[in-house]
């Protein structure tokens, strides 16, 4: 679809927000009591932040919730039944103010959940999602979107991308059919626009991801992995805050004879992830798990899923308690 560029003033933005939230759920960033940024369903516009760097958790849970019920069951000695989840009940959601790294992650997730056979839970959630992205006017030393083929104002994954102007107004790039529908239903809020100077941050490129991918093909046995993961304590923080990590666990939970099977986030950083019942563990030490994390994102996924498993948001590195800085390691890997 041809993209259109419009101007939307700060006060019109509030109207747009309220119009959207009147008809569907809206998921927007707010600053919590502890100063951390979190996304919440239906906050009031006054609480929504436009100046956040990165939220603690990514926004992947709008399409890949930390717990997703797969079906309900009832099981007794005499009768067993399974009741499907009604996917049509999945609500329409507007994701508001997600940065380009987070919006790009939806494509990555699609490449995982929809390669080969389609995961209908993910697909339905994505179908019901409208993404209003927000270009970044802030960045920090952990950001590396430009190293993975993105930028602080890349349009990937957004239906409408808002970009801030110096005066507090925004440029709205209408990028998809879904975005256009919003434009059409609120035309009065969008104004035409001439040449403008966007207030976009600069993110320094730290490595070349294609070169990293090429290097990784022959790096499996490199001593790099042990040397650079001795300090990894093996928690799942990096995977859980990551916008593209999609590994999951499947579990049952029963009360009486009724219960549900659900899937929940998991992490390849845990020893339990690959542990066999026999006690054998294919990845029995942490360096192997760290290698798996990087290999999966930068070598296996480009090969198998035709997408890079990283969007350069920097959450894993800023959230790591022992400074396992992924960009730094990739930079080093590029040069081994």
């Amino acid at each position, binding site marked *: 679809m041809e993209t259109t560029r419009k101007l939307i003033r700060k006060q019109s933005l509030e109207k747009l927000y309220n119009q959207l939230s009147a008809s569907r759920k809206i998921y927007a960033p707010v600053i919590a009591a502890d100063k951390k940024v979190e996304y919440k369903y239906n906050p009031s516009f006054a609480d929504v932040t436009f100046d956040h760097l990165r939220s603690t958790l990514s926004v992947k849970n709008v399409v890949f919730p930390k717990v997703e019920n797969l079906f309900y*069951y009832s099981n007794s000695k005499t009768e067993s039944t399974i009741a499907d989840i009604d996917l049509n009940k999945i609500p329409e959601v507007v994701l508001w103010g997600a940065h380009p790294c987070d919006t790009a992650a939806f494509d990555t997730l699609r490449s995982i959940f929809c390669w080969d056979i389609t995961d209908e839970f993910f697909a339905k959630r994505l179908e019901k999602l409208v993404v209003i992205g927000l270009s970044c006017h802030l960045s920090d030393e952990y950001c590396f979107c430009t190293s993975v083929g993105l930028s602080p104002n890349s349009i990937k994954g957004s239906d409408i991308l808002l970009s801030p102007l110096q005066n507090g107004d925004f440029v709205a790039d209408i990028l998809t059919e879904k975005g256009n529908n919003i434009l059409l239903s609120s035309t009065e809020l969008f104004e035409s626009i001439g040449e403008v100077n966007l207030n976009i941050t600069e993110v320094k490129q730290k490595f070349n991801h294609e070169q990293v991918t090429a290097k990784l093909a022959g790096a499996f046995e490199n001593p790099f992995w042990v040397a650079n993961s001795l300090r990894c304590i093996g928690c799942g923080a990096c995977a859980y805050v990551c916008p593209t990590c999609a590994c999951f666990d*499947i*579990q049952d939970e029963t009360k009486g004879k009724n219960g549900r099977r659900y899937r929940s986030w998991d992490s390849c950083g845990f020893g339990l992830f*690959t542990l066999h019942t026999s006690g054998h563990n*294919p990845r029995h030490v942490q360096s192997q798990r760290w290698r798996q994390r990087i290999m999966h994102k930068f070598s296996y996924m480009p090969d*198998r899923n035709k997408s890079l498993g990283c969007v350069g948001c920097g959450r894993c590195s800023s959230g790591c308690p022992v400074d396992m800085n992924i960009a730094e390691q990739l930079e080093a890997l590029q040069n081994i």
Partner: protein
Amino acid sequence: MSDSIYKPYLMEIESVIEETSDVRTYRLKFKNTADAEKFSFKAGQFGEYSVLGEGESTFCVASSPTRKEYIECTFRKAGRVTNALANLEPGDTVGFRGPYGNTFPIEQWEGKNLLYIAGGIALPPMRCLIWNTIDLRDKYKDITIVYGARTVGDLVYKHELKEWEERPDIKLITTVDPGGQTPDWKGEIGFVPAVLEKVAPSSKNTIAILCGPPVMIKFTMPVLKKLGFQDRDIYTTLENRMKCGFGKCGRCNVGKVFVCKDGPVFSYEQILTLPEEY
């Protein structure tokens, strides 16, 4: 609406065979006949068996695809799900998702000799294939089965071993680890690799299919090499931990390979290209 990819078929346990003290075989029938009609699988494929409330466990379909009315599975009581499974009785319900994974390329093997080598609880994944090739007996030349277990009590499918032994068109060698024999044991005594070396089957025009614990594989491979088997003529299955079965959950990654999609059947030639994470 089509059925969810996570939704299992409901199966009824038709019969139970106690193979050993902790290994059981269940014959399962589809509760819904429509499911039974559209269901088919091939040798080598596996499924996710579940006890509702306890979770899912991954193992192969142990019966032959040529026998359509039922599927059979053989499992050892080990973890939460298999323990719960083992507590079931005929008439109880088991969930089954599948079939998943690739298959043994049995069409390519037509006109060749087949050498099956299995250890302990690894016979079930091979049993499907063995029966499959026996049911198509005239398409293959010599069939040799070398099967070992720790003790006589640990041999599974005892009734079928007897049947195979009595067949003139199959050569069956059973062995138990030293000390695992009973006074009336007539088979071999010794570890599988040693017995294989003694039997020394010809590698000419032969496919070897090898399943067993890692230590058995480790010591059997050199013997096969010594007998002249090429890497591409040796097949085995990988048994990584799995959850989804269709390449999403990320658990069975071995390098860029998904054991659940690209496996579980691999030729040894393929295995050599994989990182050692299985």
